[in-house]
């Protein structure tokens, strides 16, 4: 065994010598993009429309994929207009498969791109599943899910994989109208079969659900383990309500991070590794702002041509001082920006 392994890694080293300065997978990628275990990718095998503005993508992940737990999300990288953008989507199927449901976000570059252009056969980039919005290994007896809009997606993942292990499930779901309920038919069928109790709320006619209403609709509210996912205001309301009842440990929430960053003029720049924080004006290059605060910044030409000042931005927005273009990064991103010609356009976080 050990000999075998040594031989294999020895052989691999020879292959690496053959392809230097690249690695063998760089060549393999040209012919078999899913084989590369170090760069996760997936092929879209089917695209299923859900509602007018949502689609489900069925994916076949390449080598190296670690199966998810129901309720978790994956980050998917898509090239939109030539630029690779990453977004997190909840996995909506049972472990063993991989599907995500994409809901259109207003002005959302990735969601709208996928809804319009995703086709079977396309390759997307993947991250490993993450998130702790999951059911415990010993399933609780009584469960409540409170969701709104695309907040149903992680819950659908849980229902599809663990419903048979749950005895008493209530789903309270809000959507603007009947037709906009993602997975509407499936939820209603489950309800009709008596496998869940479904409370469907159409906010365009009925308004948003208040915690008081919820208490009325689900009298044994605090005897249930609750998983809630939806807009921030809803989650804040629920959090306060559960806190008042001293039942916080029964409530699990998942917040979808806003992906649309409003770009302003200047902002607080955090230099991650050194922990330095500076308030930078909108017309001062981040390179200068950092140096003024004593951060050791890489630099070269200081005029935007040599790319030696490039640093990863992990969150926030910057403006290119030459042409005014805005670059944003959301949590989990690692967008490289030229600090000598970029100024803060809102709070941003740089890894230096």
């Amino acid at each position: 065994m050990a000999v075998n392994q040594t031989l294999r890694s020895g052989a691999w080293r020879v292959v690496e010598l053959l392809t230097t300065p690249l690695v063998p997978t760089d060549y393999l990628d040209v012919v078999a993009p899913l084989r590369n275990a170090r760069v996760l990718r997936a092929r879209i095998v089917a695209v299923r429309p859900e509602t007018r503005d949502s689609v489900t993508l069925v994916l076949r992940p390449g080598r190296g994929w670690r199966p998810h737990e129901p309720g978790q999300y994956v980050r998917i990288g898509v090239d939109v207009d030539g630029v690779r953008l990453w977004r997190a989507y909840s996995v909506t199927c049972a472990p063993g498969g991989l599907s995500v449901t994409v809901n259109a976000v207003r002005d959302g570059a990735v969601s709208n791109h996928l809804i319009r252009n995703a086709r079977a056969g396309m390759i997307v980039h993947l991250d490993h599943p993450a998130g702790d919005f999951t059911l415990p290994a010993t399933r609780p007896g009584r469960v409540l899910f409170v969701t709104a809009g695309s907040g149903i997606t992680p819950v659908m993942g849980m229902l599809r994989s663990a419903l048979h292990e749950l005895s008493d499930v209530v789903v309270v779901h809000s959507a603007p109208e009947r037709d906009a309920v993602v997975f509407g038919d499936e939820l209603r069928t489950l309800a009709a079969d008596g496998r869940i109790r479904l409370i469907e709320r159409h906010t365009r006619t009925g308004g948003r659900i208040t915690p008081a209403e919820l208490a009325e609709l689900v009298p044994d509210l605090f005897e249930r383990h609750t998983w809630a996912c939806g807009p921030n205001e809803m989650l804040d309301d629920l959090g306060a309500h559960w806190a008042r009842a001293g039942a916080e440990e029964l409530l699990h929430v998942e917040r979808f991070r806003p992906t649309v960053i409003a770009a302003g003029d200047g902002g607080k720049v955090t230099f991650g590794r050194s922990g330095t924080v500076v308030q930078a004006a909108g017309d001062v290059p981040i390179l200068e702002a950092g140096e003024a605060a004593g951060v050791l910044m890489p630099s070269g030409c200081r005029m935007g041509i040599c790319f030696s000042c490039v640093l990863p931005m992990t969150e926030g927005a910057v403006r290119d001082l030459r042409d005014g273009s805005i670059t944003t990064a959301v949590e989990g991103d690692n967008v490289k920006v030229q600090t000598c010609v970029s100024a803060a356009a809102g709070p941003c976080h740089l890894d230096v």
Partner: protein
Amino acid sequence: MTTLQRKSVNPIAHLSADDIEAIGRELDAIRDEIVASRGERDAAYIRRVISVQRRLELGSRAVLLFSLFPPAWLIGTAGLSVAKILENMEIGHNVMHGQWDWMRDPKIHSTTWEWDNASPAEQWKHSHNELHHTYTNVVGKDNDLGYGIMRVDEQQPWHPVYLGQPLWNFVNACFFEYGIAAYDLELGRNLKSKKRRRSPEFRARLKQVRRKIGKQMLKDYVVHPALSAATGSFLHTLAANAVANLVRNLWTHSVIMCGHFPNGVETFERNSIEGETRGEWYLRQMLGSANIDGNRLMHIMTGNLSYQIEHHLFPDLPSNRYQEIAPKIRDLFDRYGLNYVSGPMPKQVGSAWAKVFRLSLPNRGAAKIAAAAPRPVSGRKQQPATRWQRPATDSAPAHAGS
């Protein structure tokens, strides 16, 4: 502003400071247009070039496994030469310029790319992107001008050692990748004194280069030939790799000579760039570079450095777009009465070589007089350079464009 002012004909005497800033504004507008339209098509282009290059290299190396047979040797060597040229020029050079960083593909990114060349990417990026592109054609600052071993301007004092420079230049062309590595290491300067030789920074960089060269040599002259040994083609493959490297070296050397050496290209004085504005920087790039005329294949094989002028104005724009902006740039040259130096490759290579020969000898005639002329007194007050700052337009601040 420049050594230009000491020449008998100063090519920019007719330009006012306002003209120069206006040129800067026009160039910025051209840049904005390309940046705004960068997208899918461009990404597809570089991915296709990379894919073609890798297939070509794999294919050629496979053919070379049988290089004992002359036709296989010929085909494999030709293919490998082309693959190596593509890899260095259209892919490596341009990726390391950050031309494709906007795609946010970590595999095609200036911070991660390593190329098939003796010089490690990191060192090359420093000497090329930072020093050469910032100080283009400034004698004494831009070492690309003669790579520190040649006399490239009448203003440089002559010394008998320059008599040998045609020979050096030829040797350098044959071993160009090692020349670049030595140049990136600033080998001459660093070997001169004991202190420099022993400095930990220099030693670390030297080690980096040795490792890189070691791996490159092992690949081309040991491992690949060894694979061919099964068909009795060890030496044939070794020779094929050596020839491919030689071809690539001669080709890249020629292309690079055409960029800044041909007749009509200007050089600048060290103190001329202090406090340089964005417009002046642009102007220096315009006057300090030369293009090669040719067809599409020629442009791709030169990594679009046949559009050296456009590349020097916008070193970080995707190379496939230079062709499209070239007519606009040329028009700008015409309108401002500037000399857009361009010509077919044989002519440009010939012109550059002629200069190498000419300058190996002492100055004669007009050049001699010009060199002896007194230096003009610079009347400008010196401010720190803020070359990223655009000249203000009448209508709106430069960064209101989004």
